[in-house]
């Protein structure tokens, strides 16, 4: 079984400030790791994912996340946020291989970017 913990339920920041959203996971098997974003009144959109290879993964809109196996973490960072980044962010894991298909989510972190 897997579990995901997002350590901050709400993160308020000012525009152009850096931000880090923390995610830790627990699993008895190897997993893939994901960050999803949910804008108001919209569905969950995949922001980025770690499958294998380089432990640092990047999204097209400036977010990055680093997989740390020893700390079982997958924190999300952005060096300079915009108002439009205001959304809820969900960290999720899924077992590797075809034996498991369900996503296990964290509780979510509401990022609010203020002017």
């Amino acid at each position, binding site marked *: 079984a897997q579990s995901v913990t997002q350590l901050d339920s709400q993160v308020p920041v000012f525009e152009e400030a850096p931000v880090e959203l923390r995610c830790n996971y627990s699993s008895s098997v190897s*997993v893939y790791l994901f960050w999803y974003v949910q804008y108001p009144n919209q*569905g*969950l*959109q995949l922001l980025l994912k770690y499958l294998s290879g380089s432990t640092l993964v990047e999204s097209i809109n400036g977010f990055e996340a680093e997989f740390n196996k020893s700390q079982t973490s997958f924190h999300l960072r952005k060096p300079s946020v915009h108002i439009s980044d205001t959304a809820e962010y969900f960290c999720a894991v899924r077992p590797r291989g075809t034996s498991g*298909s*369900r*996503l*296990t*989510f964290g509780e*979510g972190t509401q990022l609010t970017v203020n002017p």
Partner: protein
Amino acid sequence: EPEVTQTPSHQVTQMGQEVILRCVPISNHLYFYWYRQILGQKVEFLVSFYNNEISEKSEIFDDQFSVERPDGSNFTLKIRSTKLEDSAMYFCASSEASGGSYEQYFGPGTRLTVT
């Protein structure tokens, strides 16, 4: 860009009534999922569906829930006799194939309110 759609966006029903939540997955996808999010809680997996049968279900998915693909485009979740605790946002998702590396695309959700 193809997307998953869900109807209705908001459903209000009385306790004990049956509800059907509808989803249209992305057309070439073969795997379909339902998740739910009770207000203030995690997004939780309910069920996955492939080749006209359930491939995986969670402990939440008891006998009052059922899923169906009644035609070539729709995927439905039926709750036979709703309870107050079924009030939640229900998300449908689809993916091309199973396995952790295949992205699940989410719909915007149906907010179910049981009174």
